[in-house]
């Protein structure tokens, strides 16, 4: 596809349920990022994958959050036992390999609402 694809576009779930958010990066992009955007806020870094290297998980807010990237392409962000404060837009981005501050290309995000 031409851009980063995220699904679902919107997700409403009850508190305590688990959710999975999917990201399909741009073909050829080896780096993949997850960010969270709470209402009226900037983006908060969650996790970063680069090729086969160990992911940078330094932004994950709690052990309820996890992410994996299979085959170096599609990534899934999982939130277990969701809480109301998890309500936010979750944005995925990907970038080409390179050492020069390669720009990140973002998807449209998943709006997660916890009831």
């Amino acid at each position, binding site marked *: 596809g031409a851009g980063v694809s995220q699904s679902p576009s919107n997700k409403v779930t009850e508190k305590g349920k688990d959710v999975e958010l999917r990201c399909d990066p741009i073909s050829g992009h080896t*780096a993949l*990022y997850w*960010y969270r955007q709470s209402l*009226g*806020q*900037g*983006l*908060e*870094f969650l996790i*970063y994958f*680069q090729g086969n290297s160990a992911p*940078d998980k*330094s*932004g994950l807010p709690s052990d309820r959050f996890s992410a994996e990237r299979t085959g170096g392409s599609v990534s899934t962000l999982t939130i277990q036992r969701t809480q109301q404060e998890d309500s936010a*837009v979750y*944005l995925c*981005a990907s*970038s080409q390999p390179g*050492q*020069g*501050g390669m*720009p*990140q*290309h*973002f*998807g*449209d*995000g998943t*709006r997660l609402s916890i009831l």
Partner: protein
Amino acid sequence: AQTVTQSQPEMSVQEAETVTLSCTYDTSESDYYLFWYKQPPSRQMILVIRQEAYKQQNATENRFSVNFQKAAKSFSLKISDSQLGDAAMYFCAYKGPFGNEKLTFGTGTRLTIIP
């Protein structure tokens, strides 16, 4: 830790006029990258312009230009000949040197274009 500050939550400008959005950042690094992203209501983050810290020349992309003041740690965005399609949230973002790949975002400036 790096921080990015956007002190103007909202700005407005008459169509065809020029507007400048402010951004300051804090870092101890000498090599880094700065970005401006635009987020329309569609939620997708769109790259507007990118600046490498080692370059003294200010980046320009058509009607968009930056005023990068490295010593002052300031990175403002100037939009010339404002158009209705420029209305959006604008986020300033910082990326550290190679190996530190996450983006740190400011809280954004909502730009309104007055017809």
